[in-house]
């Protein structure tokens, strides 16, 4: 083939082909390629041409030659057409690829947007969670408070119940108390008259005692006067004096016998003194016993008036206490195993007890009598 022909073929190929990168091919989805260089192509064509030429005889006519060249051209045109077709396919696919790339880009953008939205929502969610947590906590607290309030309410109800029970008891108590007060008022009225009477009596007795004391005083003075051998001699002392004179006469006679006048006179004086003392203590005894009697009566009256009528109220309490002791089973203690320290009081109660008993027995001779019979 002539160089001139080769170049023409090469320019035809160049005009009918298009350079494509491997990447583009890969994107089109083609994975395997057969590669043929431009030179190889030309050589191939040349070989085909030469082959066609050589098929004939060396003396191929001009006409024949032209026929070969036309055939070759036709063949080549066909190959080129095929190539152009695939080229069209390629560019169509290229368009598809571009469209898809645009799609991808759009999707990418969307993805980015979504991601942003997602981030924003995640932030919101975290805040929400925090708020939710706090809310739950305050809910718990509220619940707890509610429970406490309920508990308090229950306790209050129990308290109210207890109080109303006690109130009922107290009412009962007050009723009893009222009844007792009525009784006491009646009694106090009686007692008041009694006390008044006693007061009058006491007054009279005080008078009487005063009078007795006066008498005793007078007697004492008389005796003293007698002792001093005063010139004034009242009736009674006169009698005593008479007695004394008699005694003295008697003593004189004794003196004559043994000469001991003084002790005898002393004894006589003692007798007189004794008589005086007797009178006095007698009066005192009478006074004391009357006083004790009176006091005793007043005491009874006061006691009755101030006594608290508790017996009628014990019932409510004892019911409660019985319940308490019923719980014995559920109570346990170590008290029975432990000793408690005992001390001896520094102060004796004997003398107080004795004095109190004396005071009481003075007030009531009958009691004293009983006591005596009980003695061994």
């Amino acid at each position, binding site marked *: 083939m002539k160089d001139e022909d080769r170049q023409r073929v090469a320019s035809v190929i160049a005009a009918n082909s298009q350079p494509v990168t491997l990447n583009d091919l890969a994107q089109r989805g083609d994975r395997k390629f057969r590669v043929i260089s431009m030179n190889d192509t030309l050589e191939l064509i040349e070989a085909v041409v030469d082959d066609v030429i050589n098929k004939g005889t060396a003396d191929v006519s001009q006409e024949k030659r032209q026929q070969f060249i036309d055939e070759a051209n036709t063949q080549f045109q066909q190959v080129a057409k095929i190539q152009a077709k695939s080229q069209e396919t390629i560019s169509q696919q290229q368009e598809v690829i571009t469209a898809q790339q645009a799609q991808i880009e759009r999707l990418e953008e969307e993805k980015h947007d979504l991601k942003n939205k997602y981030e924003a929502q995640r932030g919101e969610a975290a805040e929400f969670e925090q708020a939710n947590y706090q809310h739950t906590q305050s809910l718990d607290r509220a619940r707890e408070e509610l429970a406490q309030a309920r508990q308090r309410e229950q306790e209050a109800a129990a308290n109210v119940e207890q109080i109303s029970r*006690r109130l009922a008891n*107290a009412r009962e*108590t007050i009723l009893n*108390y009222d009844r007792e007060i009525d009784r006491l008022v009646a009694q106090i009225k009686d007692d008041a008259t009694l006390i008044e009477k006693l007061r009058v009596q006491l007054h009279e007795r005080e008078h009487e005692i005063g009078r007795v004391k006066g008498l005793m005083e007078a007697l004492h003075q008389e005796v003293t006067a007698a002792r001093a051998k005063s010139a004034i001699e009242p009736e009674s002392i006169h009698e005593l004096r008479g007695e004394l004179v008699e005694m003295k006469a008697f003593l004189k006679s004794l003196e004559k016998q043994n000469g001991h006048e003084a002790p005898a006179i002393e004894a006589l004086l003692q007798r007189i003194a004794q008589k005086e003392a007797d009178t006095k203590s007698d009066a005192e005894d009478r006074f004391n016993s009357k006083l004790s009697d009176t*006091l005793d009566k*007043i*005491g009874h009256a*006061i*006691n009755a008036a*101030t006594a*608290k009528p*508790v017996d009628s*109220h*014990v019932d*409510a*309490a*004892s019911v*409660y*206490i*019985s319940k*308490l*002791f019923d*719980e014995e089973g*559920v*109570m*346990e*203690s*170590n*008290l029975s*195993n*432990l*000793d*408690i*320290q*005992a*001390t*001896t*009081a*520094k*102060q*004796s*109660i*004997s*003398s*107080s*007890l*004795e*004095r*109190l*008993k004396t*005071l*009481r*027995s003075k007030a009531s001779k009958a009691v004293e009598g*009983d*006591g005596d019979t*009980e*003695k*061994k």
Partner: protein
Amino acid sequence: MSRNSGRVGYDADKEIDAIVVPEGNGDGSGVMTGKGLDVGTANLLSAVHNHSGNPTVKRERNMFLEIPSEFQKNKKMLTQLNVPYVSYRERLFVLGDAAFNLANMFGKDVRRPMSDGFLHPQEKEAIPMLRFIVERLLGQPAAKDEPVFFCVPAASIDVQNDIIYHQGVIEGLLKKLGYTPHAINEGHAVVYSELAEEDFTGIGISCGGGMFNVCVSYKSIPAVTFSVCRGGDWIDQHVAKVMGVPPTRVTDMKEAPGLDLNQPRSREEEAIVLYYRNLIEYVLKNLAHRFAMAQDVPRFSDPVQIVVAGGSSMVGGFVDVFAEEMSKVELPLQVAGVRLAEEPLTSVVRGCLIAASME
């Protein structure tokens, strides 16, 4: 005077002085039956006869403390430590002085069955706890239906109180324990134990934890009785508040030896003295007021003796301050003097025992 006859192997005249002739309790011991019980806000005391004229006295603080129920497992240990406890429906309580000491150690507040002289109506555990302490003090009756004389406060002139409930509960408790209960006024008990020399004529005052109880007596007969609802506790509470310490701490300081109302040695003591003086002044003002109002105060021809007893009278200088404050108020009777009971803390319970022995 009376004595059971026919006792064998017992020579009363030899063992007992000629003055007291005891009634036997039938067990051949020759010791009189009958017991005294002082039901006080701060202290519970019992007194019984023994062979001497000086009675045997037991005392326990009227307090309790709930301790954590984990201690349920350590009950044995509590017994070994001589700590009295009661366990009650899964709960554990320590009683008396042990409760006081534990509370003081751990800076806690004890619980009290009584306040201001009376049972606490709000304190749910009051009666069970009181019951256990009383049982611990009195033990079993020596004879069937043995009499117990217990003291009750007189009605207060400054606060309304429920004597009936209080007395009813104590009586019920004692009956349940097998005793025959008799109530005696607290001030009257002081008269019995302290005013024999004066033929039981004069004024007995019990200065307690919850209240001051006053009894004017003529020849052993109570003419006027009343109470004032303030006592040692009042001091404790107020000093505790101003000093910012638990009240039991103040109780401890107040009862410590050496405190003198005329010579406070520290800021705390100064606070105590301040409130003590205030209390005494308050009591005397009320006393004067009561006397001024009353027609029932007997007219005494001779000046009368006043005896003060009870724990709150034991502080140094009490009688001086009392006399000093008394000179500031007007009383419608002549006072011969103010005297402190020889053993103030047992005065009431000894009076109760005397009353029981008169039965």
